[in-house]
């Protein structure tokens, strides 16, 4: 379990950077913390999709359910 931090340079478009900054403000997270969170979340979703599970969003009020397809 290697916990030594590894550095990288990340190139984002202006809109991506804006979205990142908005999310950081909303969640109270640093950019590093938010990107680490994204990696954990994406890996978990991918793992479950690979296992044959599906990902849905459900609107409680309208009782509508839609599948999120990730390629």
């Amino acid at each position, binding site marked *: *379990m290697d*916990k030594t931090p590894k550095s990288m340079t990340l190139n984002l478009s202006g809109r991506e950077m804006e979205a990142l900054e908005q999310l950081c403000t909303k969640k*109270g*997270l640093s950019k590093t913390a*938010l990107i680490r*969170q994204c990696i*954990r979340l994406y890996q*978990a979703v991918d*793992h479950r999709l690979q296992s044959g599970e599906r990902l849905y969003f459900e609107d409680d009020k309208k009782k509508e359910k839609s599948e999120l397809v990730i390629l």
Partner: protein
Amino acid sequence: MKRDGYEVLIFDLQKSSPMSAMLYEGVSDENLSDIETLWRPELEVAAKKAKGQPGEEFLPIGDAHWDWNSKVQRNRDMLAISYFVIECEGKLQAIMQMETIAHRSKLDAGKEIAYVEFLSVAPWNRRFVSDNPRFKRCGSFLIAQAIGTSQELGFEGRIGLHSLPSASKWYGNLGMTTCGKDVAYENLEYFEFSSQAAATFLKGGSNV
């Protein structure tokens, strides 16, 4: 498997003195073997003893059926799932599973929290299961570690968990805030540490 670990001082109730233990991230095969060969037989005896007793659900055996081996195998490579264990005298004394995605605070709306999914201490460290419990503070150190993980991820120490009925009083004594019973989660009581309460807990420690 090489694991990161550090020393913690748990308390030996039989000798009335502090005892050096190690807290590790990750679960070893030996830990899983301890659960099957040392924990499970004692928990099965305790479960039989508890059956039919008044207030059975409040006895500390609600976790007896948890299959740690399956949990660990299923989540082995998942970044979002972390395991921490405490070892002392060559035996597993406590174990915790955490999830660090997709949990939001109820106290601080919209903020991320680290969620303690499962926490168990060895049967010989529990009242009722053992007439003469051995070590104290294993659970407290795991909760302190959960807060540390939350801080490391930028969640400012916020953690949450659903408590089995037998442990609710204990989590309350740690200083966690109860948000009441959660109908969406088997009606178990839900607790959170806010960032401030978590910091207070870490500063003052706990004798629980």
